[in-house]
């Protein structure tokens, strides 16, 4: 657990980067600091491991006032991942990851073994261990950065825009990886970003900062979307708030049966028929033909995303994107279990709202 108590940072030149910040980061969660450039996110983060000392106020990590701990010792117990990974270009990937254990006095063998394990944990082939950072792609470097921060198994992890230098596709991978890791390792993570989508995706709680180091809102993502505290938050959270709120709703939507047909089969098509393969996985829709036809590949109308039962957002999108206006529902194996209708999603939302499940 990390507690900011009335923390203020004023730089020598008079800039107030953080202003009377009060905030508690729960143990075992990802908390995201988000806000426009220069709003004091990095400064807040760096005060936790004393890269910067606050002008006033107190920061506690697991109940201990950090100002009473010798900085290097404190830092060895807190993982830190920076933008651009900040890897040591002169050390191999393995040695980069082994850095903190070695600093903490582990013997070289043990540190290396641990480092190799970590590479696997972050999804890198151990063969990469021998390379130098310059020989890795941006996304791979980020993974190494995360592995390095995890090496000494610190309970707390600080991540400052760790994924901002990679392209959107890789970025999504890394985000998913982080969520998986967090589920596994159960760290207390503070994650800084200026990308609101990233914040909403990763954060259990999201702290929205505004210029001058003020905390504009500190809430769960769903609440930020549905009940922004003020215009600044509303505009920062951006458009599609209503649609995105659905991400956080898992209300039941009625699943309707659907007429299916196998590829190659002869069948009588009346309205929309869902064509599936031998494993009952969806291949496309058939429509506009009357009477008995043989189901062939070229008649298929494809498109439409699939709904795997996770959130109302997926259900609505499946329905909206489907040529038949029926969203295909699949199980874990990808087999069709039925269809959902957009109207039902809207209904489910209204119900959830009435039941107070949608935060205000």
């Amino acid at each position, binding site marked *: 657990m990390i507690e900011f108590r009335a923390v203020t940072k004023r730089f020598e030149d008079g800039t107030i980067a953080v202003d009377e910040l009060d905030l508690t980061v729960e143990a075992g969660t990802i908390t995201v600091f988000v806000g426009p450039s220069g709003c004091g996110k990095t400064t807040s983060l760096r005060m936790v491991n004393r890269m910067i000392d606050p002008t006033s106020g107190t920061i506690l990590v697991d109940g201990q006032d950090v100002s009473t701990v010798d900085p290097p010792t404190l830092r060895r117990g807190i993982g830190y991942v920076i933008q651009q990974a900040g890897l040591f*270009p002169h050390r191999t990937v393995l040695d980069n990851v082994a850095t903190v254990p070695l600093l903490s006095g582990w013997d070289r063998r043990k540190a290396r073994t641990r480092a190799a394990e970590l590479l696997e944990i972050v999804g890198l082939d151990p063969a990469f261990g021998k390379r*130098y950072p310059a020989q890795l792609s941006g996304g791979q470097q980020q993974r190494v950065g995360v592995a390095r921060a995890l090496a000494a198994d610190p309970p707390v992890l600080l991540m400052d825009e760790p994924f901002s230098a990679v392209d959107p596709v890789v970025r999504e991978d890394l985000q998913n990886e982080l969520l998986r890791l967090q589920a596994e390792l159960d760290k207390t993570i503070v994650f800084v970003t200026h990308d609101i989508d990233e914040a909403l995706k990763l954060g259990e709680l999201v702290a929205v900062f505004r210029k001058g180091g003020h905390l504009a809102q500190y809430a769960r993502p769903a609440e930020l979307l549905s009940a922004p505290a003020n215009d600044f938050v509303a505009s920062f959270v951006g458009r599609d708030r209503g649609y995105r709120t659905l991400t956080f709703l898992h209300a039941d939507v009625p699943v309707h049966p659907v007429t299916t047909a196998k590829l190659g089969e002869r069948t009588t098509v009346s309205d929309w028929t869902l064509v599936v393969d031998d494993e009952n996985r969806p291949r496309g829709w058939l429509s506009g033909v009357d009477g008995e036809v043989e189901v062939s590949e070229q008649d298929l109308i494809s498109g439409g995303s699939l709904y795997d039962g996770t959130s109302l957002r997926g259900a609505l999108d499946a329905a909206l994107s489907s040529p038949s206006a029926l969203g295909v529902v699949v199980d874990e194996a990808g087999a069709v279990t039925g269809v959902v209708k957009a109207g039902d999603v809207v209904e489910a939302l209204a119900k959830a709202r009435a039941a107070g499940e949608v935060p205000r």
Partner: protein
Amino acid sequence: MTWILENWERFWEVTAVHLRLSVVPVLAGFALAIPLGWWASRSPKARAVLFPLANVLFTIPSIALIVITPVLIGVRILDEINVIVPLVVYTVALMVRSVADALSAVPGHVTAAATAMGYRPLRRFLTVDFPLALPVTIAGLRVATVSNISMVSVGALVGLGGYGQLFTEGYQTDHTEKVLAGLIGTVVLAVLADGVLLLLGRVLTPWARVGR
């Protein structure tokens, strides 16, 4: 060239002296330049003092330094130290700037990462900042070494100076071959030393050659 072949032993002897007189000042000067360069890389004030001072030191004629050194440090006038000290001074003057530049060029995010991982200052300097500054530092060291090899000849003033002796003798007896021999010796030695440092640099900084 024939002179070198005919007087192989003599040539070898002055080569050895020349080598000794250039290696010692380079090593000593480099060692001194590291802390000074570090200081200059951290403090603009130190920069403002050290760089002009280095410039001025560099302009002091070697003969003047050779005359003054024994007075300052209390050695005998014909002692080797008396040649070495001025060369150390020149090397430091040359190297301070490269060391400072090299250290300043280490990416901020890397040093920040090191600090954040719990490095204490000395260890960080020795294992992160300095190794990363090596490529630029070595480039500076190459220049300093080569310049030193060329400057050692001034030692001839006090009857030392390796190839410098050949210059004096060749000059006095109107013996161009001998001067040329010294010149060739100097350049070959410099090119060799330069090559050794280049290789050393490659060996010490394998990361600098990989990737893009």
